[in-house]
């Protein structure tokens, strides 16, 4: 089985798993879920690290650096702001 096909399997199954896991999220958590998921989409940082690390031409390096910076902002900012929000959600 080719790598692409395995990737497709993983993609479809992970999407279904995601749907199952999040299907009953209460409105209170819509924003934190969104911003938390948003931080996870910064997983592109892994790709950026790989291409920057192996960069042998200036352009690859420039694009890789741009990728790392944007993805890190996304990851660090996303997780931190989600935590800040969730800290406020309390039952009294």
């Amino acid at each position, binding site marked *: 089985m*080719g*790598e692409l096909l395995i*990737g497709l399997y*993983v*993609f479809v199954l*992970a*999407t279904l798993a*995601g749907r199952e*896991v*999040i299907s*009953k999220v*209460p*409105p*209170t*958590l*819509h*924003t*934190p*879920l*969104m*911003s938390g*998921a*948003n931080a*996870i*989409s910064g*997983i*592109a*940082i*892994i*790709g*950026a*690290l790989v291409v*920057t*690390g*192996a960069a*042998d031409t200036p352009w*690859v*390096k420039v*694009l*890789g650096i*741009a*990728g*790392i*910076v*944007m*993805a890190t*902002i*996304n*990851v660090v900012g*996303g997780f*931190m*702001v989600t*935590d*800040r*929000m*969730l800290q*406020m*959600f309390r*039952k*009294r």
Partner: protein
Amino acid sequence: MDTSIIAQIAYLVSAILFVSGIKQLSSPATARSGNVRASVAMLLAIVVTLLDNRILDWTTVAASVIAGAVVGGVLARKIEMTAMPQLVAVFNGFGGGASAAVAAAEFVRLEGSGPGLGTGVTIVLSTLIGAVTFSGSLIAFGKLQGIVTGKPVTFPLQKILNALLFLGVLWVGALLAHAGMGTAAPSWFAPIHTDMNHAFFLALVAGALILGVLLVIPIGGADMPVVVSLLNSYSGLAAAATGFVLGNMMLIIAGSLVGAAGLILTQLMCKAMNRSLGNVAFGAFGTDGPALAAKTGERPVRDVDAEQAAMVLAYAGSVAVVPGYGLAVAQAQHELKKVCDLLEERGVRVRFGVHPVAGRMPGHMNVLLAEADVSYDKLLDLDDINAEFDTTDVVLIVGANDVVNPAAHDPDSVIAGMPILDVDRARTVIVMKRSLSPGFAGIDNDLFYMENTLMFFGDARQQMSELVKEVREA
């Protein structure tokens, strides 16, 4: 054992942490630890990636990571809670941008080497989705921040232009993907040689960026919850597509989880407005506002001042507060909380009725009220609060309009069928609003003219602090 096998197993652990973390995020009691768990998963994935790959230039990598972390950290700490929709939009854009940048770097690296059709297609897809997410999110940010007009921007032949541009982008993408096979395309397909890839790739990026702008500008402010969650979904899909480019399962798994989360929220938002995604994307809702708005002001309304409003509230047995975007604009959430505290001290039962699309992103009102220290078990969703209005003495509406418009029950109305908060079933309704101007949907609100409705005009924050004083004295 081979180090890359250890890396793969670590990725698997990280994937499990992501799934279970996101599951915890969907329940209030565990949400915070879910977020921590997801961030641990991210850290693990990053460390493993750094150890498993040959990093030639540690200095550059470390400097980029530190720069991004500082910017992200400062933004996350300093941002006002009322600016949360903008921040989420910007972060979304960066996620998409990062995916597009990685795909572009892979394109540059592999250009002319004939990496195969599969790699070609995936590079094109992740560049396309990433770039659309990037520019679309920046426009959404501009709209939310007030830099770009919040009204739908429309022009003649817009849909046709969008469709043509989309087809053009797909055509360029197909050419690039074909060129990925390392052979020149047949002449009927394109006047292209593999050495022209560069120009075509730039055309793909430019086309995708413009497409992102054009897709978001016709969408108005109140439809932003849909757009923000859709862009959230795109940023995940872009990351997943990048995973296909690099053959990295970690990216595919995390990306598709985000894609699914964004899609679920998008569907919830559309359902809460009784509109399809297509209608939100292409409907340019609310454009005919001014013409219909001319009617307003001719019918008599009953307006009250802070003292009268305070009396009504203070002597009620139960009060339901319905917040809307106006509360966020006026930043009146803290004053509102004070009023509610005073009322509760007097023995009044206070709850909040939150419409799913109130505000500019999913859950906007909940975040705002949580910031003001309102316990989340007092925030009732649509169905729960609707079941209580019959037995509620006073409803206090703060800066909401369309979500309480009884016109939704009128089959001829533009908002027909939208699930609303049936506030008119309560004994008295107090509407705190700057003027009688219509809401985003651009239609008059009969609620304002009903017999049991009292209009309390003014800036929400100012009037709310008046109310604090008056309730204290009542």
